[in-house]
């Protein structure tokens, strides 16, 4: 909302207070000033000039040499406009002035005027067009002022721009500040300046208003008050300069003297008003009611046809709808050039009704904005008087005596008791009762003393947001000043651990970062086809920003591939990434919010060259075993020592894929992302991706492992290799060897898988390093020979394996 300082000045005396102070104090009162602009600064170096002589430029047909009086002196100025003539009063920019709009620049960037020679003759300034000054569209002609403009006057005051405009952002609880009067009230409290007394002058003549028009409110639940006045014999026309400038200053369009007057009063007092052409109101009767069933369409004065629904409140005459209450008037009763008699509506409508209507129509106006936040019901009559004064002044006409005023009752101040100790307890202050009373009365909340410690406050109707003592406490804090409340910090430590402990996740992040993974954070909103990649029961949004973000992810895969794709497009081909994030789906589980299940996942992404990249080793790309290695490393870090990767025939998004099980519980998937899936993300290199359920993983982790004494006897390590069928899974051989070792088992790893020369066709050789140990003694050759014999027999039985080589170190 824009607020004009000049306008405020009529309501409260702000003499000697700087713009900066006003902005600061308003902000500290909770009325945030986003910016302010001193308009007079805009036309520094521009004055009103009087053109004395005009001659042709000797070297250019289209240019004129002008002598222009700027008050102190006469300047020679070259002008290219065809309409320049002696005797005109014109805007003159002098050397050093910044011209706001360059007509010859495609972007219209401002430029500084310099002393310049044009075709051999020097020009000491510039006569400007509307367009150059940013005041209008006309760029072909110079601007010409009224003949009585005083020569030499700086341009800003001449244009009424000796003003500052504050741009204010208001919270929804302060509709009372949606006007100059409301802001003036706050400033009067902030600077202890009295509000200017307002006297409204108008003359009523002729037959009482009741003879010209009638009002019937048949929906008082949605319209607690409807007041109206009638003015006859007006002449609709352009607004006078002061009115036009005032409404344009705060960003409204000037329309005519009647509409501008209603807007002016709304911006001054906060009461939305509407003017009807009385002759177009059938039967001269206004009926406030809900629409009838056949009334489904209505054309508002912006020319758009609107769908009407039964809960909306309408302003009607005897035959038809003439306006949508509190939102917008209709074409059929609009003020036009022929209008002579007007009925001015000044009403109070239910906030929630106007809000619903405005939402449903998708139509928000200055009026609806105010009504849905709450307008003072005691403002209607005052606003009518004020608008009558202005219309009679600017459009003539005769004001019918009296006001039509239909109301559900009287609107009285709300009485609230305020306990002094409650104020101090909540604010952490030690304010005396008299201090609290002084603070509240400065914002027009009169307080009586019920007792030494209790005040009775009468909250005026314009502060509908104050309903309870705590709301008054906020007012005390706000006006007293938060900056005047001393900080207190007496933390009481609470050592209970009722709430989730996050250390484990922090630890995982550190571990993965240490293992060379960059952490990523990706969008949980995805297009439906990607959200549905893993899971058909995905959650969709009713009002997405776009189809690209219409559903919620069921996997971290899409976000990961988007990140891989983005980096590839920048030529970054090697990456190790991880993400800890949430996925969402629809479920039948009753233990959730609605039917939605959210679970946290951890993902691992490998793509490009395997670690390390080196000058002397053959470049290796990441493969599925690197992925398994990373997952296994993570499991080991969490002190898990057994797990199973089960190969399974895959969903469409993977080519090589494994399911991970720990203690029989499925933890997640790992695999090479299928080409089909990669294509969707324009990724043209292999991506290996694993995604595990984080809560399961953390639940399974072994937290407090007890210390085990260090082995007293050295391990015996040796190598074994077997020849088996190609298709025999190595993991099974490992399991068998493990079980053959029994108690003595300490460690096993694969160091070679080979097929080819020396190995029969259809077979492979698998070589293992085995470590055995005992708690009681150092193992001897016989122990090892015994194990090898046992292993050979077992593997031969189970896999027809043949012992190929053994080597004892």
């Amino acid at each position, binding site marked *: 909302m824009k607020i004009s300082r000049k306008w405020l000045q009529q309501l409260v005396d702000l003499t000697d207070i700087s713009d900066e102070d006003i902005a600061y104090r308003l902000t500290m009162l909770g009325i945030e000033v986003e910016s302010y602009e001193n308009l007079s600064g805009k036309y520094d170096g521009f004055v009103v000039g009087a053109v004395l002589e005009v001659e042709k430029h000797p070297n250019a047909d289209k240019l004129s040499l002008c002598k222009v009086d700027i008050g102190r002196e006469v300047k020679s100025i070259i002008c290219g406009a065809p309409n320049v003539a002696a005797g005109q009063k014109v805007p003159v920019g002098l050397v050093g002035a910044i011209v706001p709009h360059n007509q010859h620049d495609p972007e219209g960037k401002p430029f500084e005027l310099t002393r310049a020679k044009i075709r051999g003759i020097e020009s000491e300034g510039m006569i400007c067009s509307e367009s150059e000054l940013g005041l209008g569209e006309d760029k072909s002609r110079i601007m010409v002022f009224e003949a009585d403009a005083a020569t030499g006057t700086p341009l800003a005051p001449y244009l009424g721009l000796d003003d500052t405009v504050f741009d204010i952002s208001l919270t929804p609880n302060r509709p009372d500040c949606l006007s100059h009067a409301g802001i003036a009230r706050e400033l009067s409290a902030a600077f202890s300046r009295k509000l200017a007394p307002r006297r409204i002058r108008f003359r009523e003549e002729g037959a009482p208003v009741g003879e010209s028009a009638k009002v019937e409110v048949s929906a008082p639940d949605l319209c607690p008050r409807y007041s109206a006045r009638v003015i006859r014999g007006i002449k609709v026309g352009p607004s006078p300069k002061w009115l036009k400038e005032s409404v344009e200053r705060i960003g409204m369009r000037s329309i005519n003297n009647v509409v501008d007057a209603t807007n002016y009063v709304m911006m001054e007092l906060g009461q939305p008003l509407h003017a009807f052409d009385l002759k177009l109101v059938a039967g001269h009767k206004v009926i406030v009611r809900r629409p009838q069933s056949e009334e489904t369409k209505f054309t508002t004065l912006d020319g758009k046809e609107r769908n009407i629904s039964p809960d909306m409140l309408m302003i009607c005459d005897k035959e038809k709808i003439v306006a949508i209450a509190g939102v917008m008037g209709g074409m059929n009763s609009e003020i036009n050039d022929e209008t002579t008699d007007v009925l001015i509506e000044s009403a109070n409508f239910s906030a929630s009704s106007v809000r619903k209507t405005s939402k449903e129509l998708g139509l928000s106006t200055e009026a609806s904005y105010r009504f849905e936040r709450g307008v003072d019901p005691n403002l209607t009559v005052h606003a009518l008087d004020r608008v009558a004064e202005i219309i009679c002044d600017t459009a003539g006409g005769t004001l019918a005596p009296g006001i039509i005023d239909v109301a559900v009752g009287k609107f009285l101040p709300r009485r609230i008791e305020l306990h002094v100790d409650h104020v101090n307890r909540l604010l952490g*202050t030690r304010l005396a009762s008299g201090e609290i009373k002084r603070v509240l009365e400065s914002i027009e909340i009169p307080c009586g003393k019920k007792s030494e410690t209790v005040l009775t406050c009468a909250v005026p109707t314009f502060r509908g947001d104050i309903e309870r003592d*705590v709301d008054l406490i906020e007012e005390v804090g706000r006006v007293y000043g938060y900056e005047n*409340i001393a900080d207190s910090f007496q933390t009481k430590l609470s050592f209970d651990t009722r709430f989730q402990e996050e250390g484990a996740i922090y630890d995982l992040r550190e571990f993965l970062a240490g293992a060379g993974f960059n952490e990523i954070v990706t969008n949980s909103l995805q297009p439906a086809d990607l959200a549905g990649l893993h899971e058909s029961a995905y959650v*969709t949004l009713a009002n997405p920003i776009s189809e690209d973000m219409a559903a919620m992810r069921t996997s971290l895969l899409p976000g990961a591939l988007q990140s891989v794709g983005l*980096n590839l497009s*920048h030529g970054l081909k090697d990456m190790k990434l991880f993400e800890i994030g949430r996925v969402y789906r*629809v479920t039948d589980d009753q233990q959730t*919010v609605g039917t939605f299940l959210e679970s946290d996942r951890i993902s691992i992404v490998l793509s490009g060259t395997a*670690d390390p990249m080196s000058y002397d080793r053959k470049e290796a790309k990441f493969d599925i075993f690197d992925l398994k290695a990373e997952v296994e490393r993570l499991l080991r870090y969490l002190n898990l020592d057994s797990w199973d990767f089960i190969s399974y025939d895959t969903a469409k998004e993977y080519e090589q894929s494994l399911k991970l099980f720990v203690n029989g519980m499925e933890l997640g998937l790992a695999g090479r992302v299928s080409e089909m899936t990669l294509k969707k993300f324009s990724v043209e290199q292999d991506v290996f991706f694993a995604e595990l359920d984080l809560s399961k993983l953390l639940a399974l982790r072994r937290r407090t492992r007890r210390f085990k004494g260090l082995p007293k006897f050295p391990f015996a390590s040796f190598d074994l290799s077997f020849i088996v069928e190609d298709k025999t899974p190595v993991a099974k051989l490992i399991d068998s060897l493990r079980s053959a070792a029994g108690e003595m088992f300490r460690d096993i790893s694969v160091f070679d898988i080979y097929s080819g020369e020396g190995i029969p066709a259809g077979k492979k050789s698998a070589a293992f390093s085995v470590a055995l140990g005992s708690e009681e003694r150092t193992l001897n050759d016989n122990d090892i020979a015994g194990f090898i014999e046992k292993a050979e027999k077992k593997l031969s039985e189970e896999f027809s394996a043949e012992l190929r080589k053994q080597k004892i170190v």
Partner: protein
Amino acid sequence: MLDEIQKLKEEATASLTGLRTQEDTENFRLQFLSRKGSVAQLFEKLRDVPKEDKPAIGKSLNELRTFLESEFESAQKKIAGEKRADTGSIDLSIPGRKRYIGRRHPLTKTAEEIKRIFTCIGFGIADGPEIEDDYHNFEALNFPPDHPARDMQDTFFVKADAGKYVLRTHTSGVQIRVMENNKPPVRVIMPGRVYRNEAISARSYCLFHQVEGLYVDKNVSLAELKGTVAYFAKEFFNAEAKLRFRPSFFPFTEPSAEVDVNCFLCGGKGCRICKYSGWLEIMGCGMVDPNVFKYVRYDPNEVSGYAFGMGIERLALLRYGIDDIRLFFENDLRFLNQF
């Protein structure tokens, strides 16, 4: 027999001079000195030698073995030594093998820092659902239906159940859940992801992360809130951080305030980042509204409380001087590798 010994000695000596590699020495060992090597074979033959010759032949065999073993040992050492000496010719200026460097995401780092600061002064950590019902996201936080306050947050609605569920617009719903499930006092922070239906630009994204705090106990006051926030700002920004509390409005707090910190980029003189105001907005806060206590069955006459909430992206943008919020979600390695 003595001839054979002499012959073997010559043969072995010649062989020794030709040893170059570890493999050569192993072969030498196998040929001459192993259990089945030539020397061992001669010892075998000793059995067949006439008794009277045995001492002399045995002596020279032993001499041969000792000689070869010591010669072999020094040859071995020499070869090993030569190998070590080789390293001198390697170009040590070749860079080391390149390994991946991992880093935590700047948002995570910022969130962890905020959590650390608050857990240090006794706050617990709570979590809640991102798909939230209207009751917890709005109603119990004192946003009446059809109230303009709901316009302060552009909301995503879930398609199923016709607008009954939303993507939470703030983590404040967790406040309600914590109070529903715990008796006062409660002292907890609530980090998490929240959503706003806003056009994506350098300044706003469709989602961001918040940390909210809640403290409810006997006699919790605005002064205590100010003190706690001041402690946080000094820890998070720097010890010289200056704050100002501006009155504001949130439906679930009364009184309410926005907190600004003096712009540390320009020292308060005014710059592009602080929009020439000298102040940076960092959080909203206030005293828990009695209506909220009614929803969770706390007695507002018994307890009072404060709540605050801040945007992690906002703090990270300020802290690192990042000018585009979208960078957080693109995961460009050139960005991630800077933190």
